[in-house]
């Protein structure tokens, strides 16, 4: 315990990085569970003050188009599968995980690329941009956000960085195994390979933490309408008015 990096000896007997220390998996897992429980307790304590929640009744406006919802859920599914199959051998589950892992990885990679393309050209890319002035938002209850509020943007960009990191390192790792597309060469220098494994491991840990946090907030009672909107696509005008600034975001009405 207490180590972040595992080392091994390379073929010459010299010490090189092997990867992340998987003890950290338990550390991260415990830390995130404690944090979220603490958050839940604090929120429960504060709950009396703002009992009034916006209603989901009334006119509906479009928050997520169906294609984007598909993107979201497929990415979510592939990430969960990747986390499960990646973690299974570490925690001692004997399953044939590798093929599922790289297939999910490929799916995630294509989804991410497609999402980047769509977000750049078809979606309102600016709505997700995190500007310096946004950092004042959490401290000023008078300031209402556009389509996404500060924490959502923060989560999105954190996930972006981490997912891109797992993808890049994952693709490099994918090239080290046999696949239907190539026979591996196994010729990457061991120190570089170790670095790739380390980055993949670290981003995995971050992803586990982010995924847990994301799922937690998605299930929070005051946020669950966002989750509903990710399933059904709409939110109510009341919810919009309570949480967003129409000047910054004017969605069209839902059918």
């Amino acid at each position, binding site marked *: 315990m207490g180590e972040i990096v595992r080392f*091994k*000896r*390379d*073929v*010459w*007997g010299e010490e090189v990085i*092997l*990867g992340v220390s998987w003890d950290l998996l338990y550390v991260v897992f415990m830390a995130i569970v404690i944090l979220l429980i603490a958050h839940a307790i604090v929120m429960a304590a504060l709950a009396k003050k703002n009992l009034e929640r916006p209603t989901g009744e009334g006119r509906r406006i479009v928050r997520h188009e169906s294609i984007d919802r598909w993107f979201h859920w497929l990415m979510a599914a592939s990430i969960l599968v990747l986390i499960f199959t990646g973690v299974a*051998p570490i925690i001692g589950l*004997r*399953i*044939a*995980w*590798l*093929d599922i892992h790289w297939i999910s990885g490929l799916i995630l990679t294509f989804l991410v690329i497609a999402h980047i393309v769509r977000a750049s050209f078809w979606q309102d890319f600016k709505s997700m941009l995190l500007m310096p002035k946004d950092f004042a938002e959490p401290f000023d209850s008078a300031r209402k956000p556009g389509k996404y509020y500060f924490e959502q943007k923060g989560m999105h960009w954190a996930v972006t960085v981490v997912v891109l990191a797992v993808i890049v390192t994952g693709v490099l790792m994918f090239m*080290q*195994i*046999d696949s239907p597309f190539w026979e*591996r*060469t*196994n*010729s990457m220098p*061991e120190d570089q*390979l*170790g670095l790739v*494994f380390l980055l993949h491991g670290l981003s995995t840990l971050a992803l586990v933490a982010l995924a847990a946090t994301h799922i937690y907030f998605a299930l929070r009672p005051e946020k669950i309408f966002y989750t509903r909107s990710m399933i059904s696509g709409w939110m109510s005008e009341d919810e919009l008015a309570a949480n967003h600034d129409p000047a910054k975001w004017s969605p069209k009405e839902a059918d």
Partner: protein
Amino acid sequence: MVATSHDVMPDIELYQPADEATALDLASRLGNEGWLLGGGQDTYGWLKDRNKNPSAMIELTQIDAWKGITETVDGIEIGAVTTLTDIARDPLIQSRFGLLAEAAGIVASPQIRNVGTLGGNLIQDTRCWYYRRGLDCYRAGGNICYADSPEGLNREHALFGASRCVAVTPSDTAPALVALDATMVISSTSGQREIPAQDFFVGPDRDILNMTVLNEGEILTAVRIPNTWANAEFYFEKVADRNVWDFALVNVAAAFRTSGENIEDARIVCGAVECVPRRLQDVEAAIRGRSRSDSTANAVADMATAGARPLNYNNFKVPLMQNLVKRAIRG
């Protein structure tokens, strides 16, 4: 320092439990730090090389309950610490399950068979020389396979089922036991479980660090062979670079039930081509109802190696395996 040559036993504790309960207790208490010792013929090399460094050995060969061959209601039971010589020479095994007697009698060398145990032969580690060398490869918990690298020497490695690691099972008795539909009796402080020989071995896709399903604290205590294949027609052949000591390049263990000219049912299992004994179920199905002849053998030869993915230096194993399967079928 990898290349410095060690050949002396390092400091390590030795426990010689005299009864089952003590042995199981020790195995559970010491966990990964306790090395289960049968005849030790696959143990001392690891220890002398300092490539495995447990802190204690638990010698199982003093436990009479796990030794010997007994007839049961529906077959025989062989204690896991019975020596290979005893198995090869046992009249009951010779007469009823000659396949196993033959396999046990061709392992390594006479002296090794004299102390080597059935259990040890079944759970012995792979012979991949990079892994044996103490390199931190996938199987040793690392992130690379040296055997399957551009200049890796892999003529003794896998044709099938490689998943990052390309090591193969080295056992001669394992294919025989899979062919005989044997089951493995696994004991621990929390009780006993019995699993089919075929499921006892595990490939790198499911567990890259272990070759069997044995968990920490578990001991393989016996092997049960049902009478299903008793007195069947058997064929065993092992091809190795040397007749003595050496491990199989490919071995084949087969059992046939015939009625008249035709094969009613068969088991054909090859060793040293995959990390686990490879049962050729397609071939078994294809030869049902046909005679044990050249034409049957030739008809299924390609099927025997269908899906093989040879490495740089083990292409020869494909025709070798085909020929062994053909010979087994021809009888």
